[in-house]
């Protein structure tokens, strides 16, 4: 059976895998497998912005995905961006295979505050659900509390809940029911 693969891109603390496994297992009826971590590609680094181009990391993940990977989720601590936008919490291929989430701006330290594991866990869960939702065809939701609502700053991430709204949840469930493994 095809599986959801999790992979670290660069150094990622071990604790986050448990959080991600719990979050994904609740919503996605897929076997979860771990892959050996990848180094952050040097080509992704933009020296002017001191950030990493998420497109390059997504490309690397797509190449790295094993044949039985229905989805591959990369987690990284580096700060992600695309040329047009100053930063991204994460990115995904809409209805595609690859997603990436950055811990950088989810951590309290980024905002000059002391680290808080519970805050990081909550934020990471929301962003993982958000990006994974995109890979299953969900687009941004107008329901502010839904994990699929758009977050353009950290305050918006904190407003969301760690779950999908009824509509997005049922759309996701329908997707799994109709494709029966061929997600």
């Amino acid at each position, binding site marked *: 059976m095809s599986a959801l693969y999790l992979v670290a891109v660069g150094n990622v603390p071990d604790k986050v895998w448990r959080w991600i496994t719990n979050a994904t297992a609740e919503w996605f009826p897929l076997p979860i497998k771990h892959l050996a971590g990848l180094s952050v590609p040097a080509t992704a680094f933009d020296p002017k912005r001191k950030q990493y*181009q998420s497109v390059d990391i997504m490309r690397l993940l797509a190449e790295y995905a094993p044949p039985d990977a229905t989805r591959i989720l990369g987690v990284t601590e580096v700060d992600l961006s695309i*040329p*047009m*936008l100053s930063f991204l919490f994460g*990115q995904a291929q809409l209805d595609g295979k690859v997603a990436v989430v950055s811990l950088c701006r989810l951590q309290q330290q980024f905002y000059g505050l002391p680290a808080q594991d519970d805050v990081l866990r909550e934020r990471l869960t929301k962003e993982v659900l958000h990006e994974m939702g995109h890979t299953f065809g969900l*687009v941004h939701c107008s329901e502010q509390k839904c994990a699929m609502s758009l977050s353009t700053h950290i305050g918006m991430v904190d407003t969301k809940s760690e779950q999908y709204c009824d509509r997005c949840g049922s759309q996701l469930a329908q997707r799994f029911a109709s494709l029966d493994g061929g997600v």
Partner: protein
Amino acid sequence: MKKNWPILVVDDEDVMCESMAAWLREDGYRVDTAPNGQQAVELAKSTDYAICFVDLKMPGGMDGIETMMEIHRVRPEASVIIITAYATVDTAIQAMKEGAQEYIVKPCNPQEISMLVSRILKLKKLQSENAILRKKLTRQYRHHDVITKNPRMEEILALTQEIASLRSTVLIRGESGTGKELIARAVHFSGNRAEKPFIVVSCAALTETLLESELFGYEKGAFTGATGQVKGKFELADGGTIFLDEIGDISPKLQADLLRVLQERRFYRVGGNEEVQVDVRIIAATNKNLPQEVQQGKFREDLYYRLNVIEIRLPALRERLEDIPLLAEHFVQRISSELGKEVHGISPAALKVLMAHDWPGNVRELENVIERAIVTCRNGMLDEQDFSWLQRANPQQNWEIPDVPLGELERRAIVAALERKHGNVKEASAALGIDRSTLYDKLKRYEISH
């Protein structure tokens, strides 16, 4: 998917185009990309983009400003946002002067872009709603809102133009829902009375007494509750047109009163002694067979001939099947906009279902059916299953046989066939499954004029 608002991203850097497109797609937009100005303009020719993000500096060929100008040439309504990596006041001013909606410097804060896109689209939505409302308001003035490619309907439309400026009374006949009022409006608003009132009276909706005071007005004290003089519809329509819908339903007394108005253009308000004179064009409509009502003594013959100066017979929808796809598309577009639901078409399978239906309620029924389907539609395109209830409701012909002698049934079948075939005996006999001479015999026997 917010398919009604497609977005175009134009940049020579592939990574910029694709990453921006991917980000916008996550928001549900349909996004296309172009690596240069030429391709952007080609795409704009075939797609009505709501927003175009255009990079200012693109090597070789058109730059961002030229691209914007060319896009505006083919899509004047498109909102162009100029993107640049370097902010200079001069280029910003030039871009705005040439018609850019916004000028942004990359990289942008995601919130800035998100708010910019939603602000522009909110404005576009308001503009689009405004256009729909304006169209709705002016619909009554416009002839081409009668959607048809049916030759008979086209003849009728041509006739409405010819008779628009005459004062002659018009009698519009047709089944319920065939658009009798629409045609009456077309006659009124195409002629020299267009600036004057068009007053609609539904004769079937009111009792005799109410209809009398509604049509002719009343004086103070004419009846209990008449606390002041009130003008009737004939007076209100002075200089314009009065549309008397369901004229076949009025009482014998009102038939006599109406005949007098038609002959003399004068009448008395209820309870009044003073004669009121008006200049009103009368357009009447009925779904009844008035000649038959006359024969049966239910409708005054003299009034019928006064009304029937110009007769327009509207075909039933089942007689203009070729119009169903056109009307269906028109209703989908209009109703989805009015309801704010993104339904952008109707599938061939669904059209097949609509074509197979008998449409006893005619165009009005089709409109209602489309509205119901849009309300329940879940995937942005009306499909066969959105009309499954229609198929269930229409499994076979639903015969309702009245309790009348067999000969009367035959007579009614012949009259109906003749009506459907516009008096064509050959076609009516074929529809009835009898030969022409037999039909002529029966016409004679039942004293049916055709």
